[in-house]
């Protein structure tokens, strides 16, 4: 019973974090460590800044519809 509930909440948590892109930083760190082991890993603050700057440069990223 408890394990089912725990699995359900962790599932919801995972989904919300993925959908909001809260997990973007972990994903990026994993990507850098895997594919570019020699590259420096930015800290979260720097990473989030880089992400918004990319959106700034091309506003079509993440564009919403009518």
């Amino acid at each position, binding site marked *: 019973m408890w394990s089912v509930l725990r699995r359900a909440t962790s599932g919801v948590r995972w*989904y*919300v*974090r*993925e*959908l*909001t*892109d*809260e997990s*973007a*930083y972990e*994903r*990026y760190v*994993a*990507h*850098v460590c895997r*594919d570019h082991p020699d590259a420096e890993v930015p800290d*979260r*603050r720097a*990473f*989030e*800044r880089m*992400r*918004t700057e*990319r*959106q*700034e*440069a*091309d*506003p*079509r*990223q*993440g*564009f*919403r*519809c*009518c």
Partner: protein
Amino acid sequence: MRTANVRTIVVWTLVALVAAAGWSVLALARGENVSAAWMVAAALGSYAIAYRFYSKFIAYKVLKVDATRATPAERLDNGIDYHPTDRRVLLGHHFAAIAGAGPLVGPVLAAQMGYLPGTIWIIVGVIFAGAVQDMVVLFFSTRRDGRSLGQMAREEIGPFGGAAALLATFAIMIILLGVLALVIVNALASSPWGTFSIGMTIPIALLMGFYLRVLRPGRVSEVSLIGVALLLLALVAGRWVAESSWADTFTLAPSTLVIWLVAYGFIASILPVWTLLAPRDYLSTFMKIGTIALLAIGVIVALPDLKMPAVTDFAKHGNGPVFAGSLFPFVFITIACGALSGFHSLISSGTTPKMIQKETQIRMIGYGSMLMESSVAIMALVAASIIDPGLYFAMNAPAGAIGTTVQNASQVVTSWGYHISPADLAQAAKNVDEASLLSRTGGAPTLAVGVSEIFAKVTGGSLRAFWYHFAIMFEALFILTALDAGTRVGRFMLQDMLGNVYRPFRNVSWKPGLALTSALVCALWGYFLWVGVHEPLGGINQLFPIFGISNQLLAAVALAVCTTLLVKSGRLKWAWITGIPLAWDATVTLTASWQKVFSSDPKVGFFKQRSVFQDAIDAGKVLPPAKNMDDMHTVVTNSTVDGVLSAILAVLVVVVIADALRVCVRHVRRPALSTLSETPYVESKIVAPAGLIPTRKEKEEARARDVVGAQAGD
């Protein structure tokens, strides 16, 4: 040959029966109220059958999606915009990106023709046109590293067609922004409650932006929860403000709101993304998904009766007050996004193809999301059809038609055959704490009344006013986000175009160019907004058809690109998959454009309207609903602009379709001449299910991969 098992046959026969029962009751019931349950049954049953059979056929027989081919997300994975995303997450992303105000507003306006024409087009349209377009664009863009629709038009059709497509997209964006802003103005005008709570979303977003930038970078869920809580507080506080001495400060006239909105659009679009746009987007996405889920539950639990007739007299005579014109083509124009939306092709060829994990998931993401969007449109139609038809027409007819008092409105609406007493009209406004509901055109207030009716059935009538303003807030929130984001996209296109003339414009972070192009874009949509608010004939009445036409014209561009690609990629036999929707969409839209330009009925044709009013000016007369000579001149100017614009848009799209046809014919005659810019095949290493629920075979594959991975790994 594969034989279906008995259980499958029984299940799908039952689904077909449910859909058939829904359709029969909707189509045949006359003279009594039909339960919304039948509409839900017809919709869900038809969607299920279409998804199971038609989308599968397109995916595997026509497009031949290849599970072994690596997607751009896998090949170009950079951990940021290209990364293989779980299909369930991407479904949410894609749906949140395509769903907006469009599917909510269009069906509400189309309800003037009764619920039946709208229901048929929303369901049939999505199955054969809208969902097909979204899915096929997504497929071809995925095969081209996530190229945008404009780039695909340029590469696959030619520079001429490509330029026309780009110009059409820009014009369409401007009209969209103007009309969406007009919807907001009509919902917030003289409503201190609404204006206050929407105004509060700006400080809330700024606070969230600061939190994410400085305090705790990237913690989106927690800041969204804080934001939603503050938003609900602002909503409740709106009532206190409306009842306090501050009420006058927040009671704004439409023309004041126009200035505020244009100023907001300009400032928001030159501020950094993190201050307003990003946090607002989180808020509106949370609200959007939450409210749509609540509404679905509300409709299913309450199952209200539809009070609107199946087909009204306005459908037969084409003289409706909400928008002018006959059932064909104007129902298909008005219900823009719920059935077929050109704008979705920009999403399907934007972010989504860069994130899709497997080609096999294109069916679920492209076709599936669009079916969900269509069900939102059905819910909007339910919400508009359960309110008293008399109230519906009093809310949606322009003031020029029904006057500004409840007595007058009641008289006029009753003369149309929908009885409602002045007392009932006054009471309806009082129920939702608004001064008046007369001529609250634009769809949002009507939807909000319908939503409050549905929610009040579940939660009790005392919360009705709260739910009304909740629904207004929900729409206003993402329309404001769209104004900001849309201004940025428009600016980006403009920078690109002007960059050809004066190089520094190309540099998107060149500050003077940025401010100038932003101002230009805001001025353009601000012009339409201003015109819409000051239009004596009713802004929504005049402008919504142009918005619908432009959205459907963009769909024609997308379908033309898809058809060309089907032909060029050796799928000539299956070109009808997008070719028939293209033919239908082009017929509908160009007929509508033709009527808007050339019709001799001054209610429909812009130039006829212009000449009628111009003649009256020359004769020194004032024609109703204009009240003075200034109004008369406004009508003449507006109808000229609207008419010219309709004509230009139609010509641009004819150019794109003709150019696409030329390329197709050339390919059929001399295939050697055409080039196809598809990225070469690379084998995929990802194993992932195609649909929402993994099949037994897919589970086995995943298990096998885990075993191999464990052996191969260190």
